């Protein structure tokens, strides 16, 4: 009967700096769908950052008074703003589908007091919350509900 090997049996006699090379992006990253999707997910950060500054610009104008608000709302019709907001909507949908639909169902804590739910159920719950919040928020902003 063989004994289990000691876990440090193959370790070098002295601890030294790691000999593994730092991770490097492969030159062919654009041709690899998984890396491409991962990088596009990261690239949405630029859009989110700019979207945050646009909302800040709007809120600042709202605080300045009716004239500034009217001016800033009129400026949103500029084609550049429309293209940017279309890009923002695509980014938000992409992030939502990837984060809520793919990542979060796999990120449930194991071994805790809460039961681990089926991925499809988690996906459905988060998508429902997202859709409900978007619907209510949109109706309020569009003047369909609320004062």
């Amino acid at each position, binding site marked *: 009967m063989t004994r289990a090997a000691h876990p440090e049996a193959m370790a070098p006699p002295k601890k030294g700096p790691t000999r593994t090379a730092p991770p*490097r992006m492969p030159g062919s990253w654009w041709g690899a769908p998984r890396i491409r999707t991962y990088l596009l*997910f990261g690239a949405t950060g630029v859009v989110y950052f700019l979207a945050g500054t646009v909302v800040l610009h709007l809120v*600042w104008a709202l605080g300045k008074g009716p004239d500034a*608000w009217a001016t800033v709302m009129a400026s949103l019709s500029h084609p550049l703003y429309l293209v940017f907001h279309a890009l923002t*909507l695509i980014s938000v949908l992409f992030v939502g589908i990837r984060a809520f639909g793919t990542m979060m169902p796999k990120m449930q804590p194991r071994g805790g007091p809460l039961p681990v739910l089926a991925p499809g159920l988690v996906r459905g719950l988060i998508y429902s919350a*997202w859709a409900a919040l978007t619907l209510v928020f949109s109706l309020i902003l569009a003047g369909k509900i609320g004062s």
Partner: protein
Amino acid sequence: MKHLLLKLEPIIWLLFGAGLSVGTMLLTGFVLVVGLAIPMGLVPSDALDYERAHALASNGFGRLVLLGLIALPLWKGAHHVRSLSVDFNGGDRDGAVGVLVYTAAALCSLIAIVAVVRL
């Protein structure tokens, strides 16, 4: 500088995670209506005339939502831009990029607090 970033990691990840989840949920409706539907004439512009917009935004809940709508996407964006820099062989410049993007997010978040308080 990397040491400071490592110490702040839990706060940064909290804000990044909130930006990814809450920010995404809030931005969807906002961009759909304010960014696209109103400018394209699909929703009448008086739905968000000054009086109504101010009334919606200037109560406590409205201010909180607006602060989340500004600050959370900024932190999600900052962290993802840093992550993207590292992915493109930016390990050596990570400290400088991290400080730059997080400082920008923190400054804009402070301005956002001022903006919602003065409504």
